[in-house]
């Protein structure tokens, strides 16, 4: 059984399939993600493959600061990715809301709503950085003690600065 588990873990690292989702991004990161998938960088060498359906994916690449309108979609798509899965937050917006922090229509950053495994900061990040981030996420997928992610994992994520500020003002935090 040990051998089979090792094989499975190896195959998971060698075959990360992506699903790309925009949660209200300005499109800058999306262009860079598409550029990193294009023939110039040849990510197929790492087994990386952009998939059409979240149900086929292992790694969810999310760009944008998570707007009010996209929140439900982000949660739904996260639920549709079968376990084991990893989330890559692309760009500064997904990490910290960047220039959109404090906007009434922005409910991010991403880790308030779903567990994030890898951050790729940058506005926008370079394709090299994106590929490195995806490769890191693929490495995480291979660790058997990490899977499967449960709702418990989501609960343990500490509240972000925005949530603490909201709690201090007596408002309800987002999670």
């Amino acid at each position: 059984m040990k051998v089979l588990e090792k094989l499975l873990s190896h195959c998971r690292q060698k075959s990360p399939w992506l699903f790309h989702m925009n949660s209200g991004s300005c499109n800058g990161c999306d262009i860079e993600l598409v550029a990193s998938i294009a023939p110039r960088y040849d990510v197929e060498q790492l087994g990386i493959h952009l998939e059409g359906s979240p149900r086929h994916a292992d790694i969810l690449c999310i760009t944008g600061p998570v707007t009010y309108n996209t929140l439900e979609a982000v949660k739904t798509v996260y639920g549709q990715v079968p376990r084991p899965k990893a989330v890559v937050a692309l760009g500064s917006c997904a990490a910290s809301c960047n220039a959109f922090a404090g906007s009434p229509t922005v409910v991010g950053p991403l880790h308030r709503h779903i567990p994030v495994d890898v951050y790729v900061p940058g506005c926008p990040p370079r394709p090299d950085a994106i590929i490195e981030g995806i490769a890191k996420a693929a490495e995480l997928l291979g660790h058997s003690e990490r899977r499967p992610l449960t709702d418990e994992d989501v609960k343990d994520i500490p509240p972000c600065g925005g949530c603490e500020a909201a709690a201090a003002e007596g408002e309800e935090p987002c999670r």
Partner: protein
Amino acid sequence: MQVTTAILRLLIFPGLFFAVPAAWLFLYIERKTIAQMQQRIGPPLLQPFYDFVKLLGKEPLKLGGIQGLLMRAWPAFSVSVLIAALALIPVFPSKGGFSGDLILLITLLELPSMFYMLAGFTSRSIYGKVGSMREASLSLSSNLLFLTAVMMIAVSAHTFRLSELAVPAASPARWLGLAAIVLCIPAKLRLNPFSTSSAEQEIYSGPLTEYSGSDLALWELAHGLEWLALSGFVVSLAFPRTGFKIADAGIFAFLCIALVVLLATVAAATARFTIDRSVRFYWRWSVALAVVFLVSAVVFKG
């Protein structure tokens, strides 16, 4: 025909034990060729194997009831039907093989596309339904050409028996029929420019949108087996036999791989047709081929 021979053919050669690695090899050649066309290095040799094992280890479909049962059944049916088709392909023409004929082989080659369509409708996803409808109209038009070509080959050889079809030297009617079949293969394999049914820029993954885990792995495997079965079918009717089994097998494998490289090159070099354009393409060629077929039947009567 002996039961043991049949079981050996289904399970060992050219069945499951041989066909699965060969299907992975063909998937690799397809992806590698496309990568080379784009001046990339492309995936490692074991990539289809990695994908398959990884998908087996993913969380399975959570659907219950009839819908879940059917969705799990379609890919399994596709793989088993294709393995049966592979066992029928006359690489070494002999009397001792399966007692099937061309009609059975065509049926077995056609069923996976039917299961693919049914998978889209069973998933109840809107993208799946659109993909299935596109697959249905494409299959309806490409099969017209495909079946005309198969009829032409069978009539010119005066037989439907696979072992007899594979033996004689190829005639002009045979070459024309085979060329028409090669023209149909991109539609049957959902390759560019006839990849409308799985156009991820428009309808996500088409009929397979709702699939995940081991069922998706079986669909990937079925795609590789389809490559193997269709290229094997064309090549087994085309190449002249030397009489030496090892030489025959070598030529057969070489020509199959050459066909895969050719079709993958075409796929990499073309853009996707819209559905009405692909349908029109096949109807035009079918009419042309049908006219040639009728004329040759009248001219070379008897």
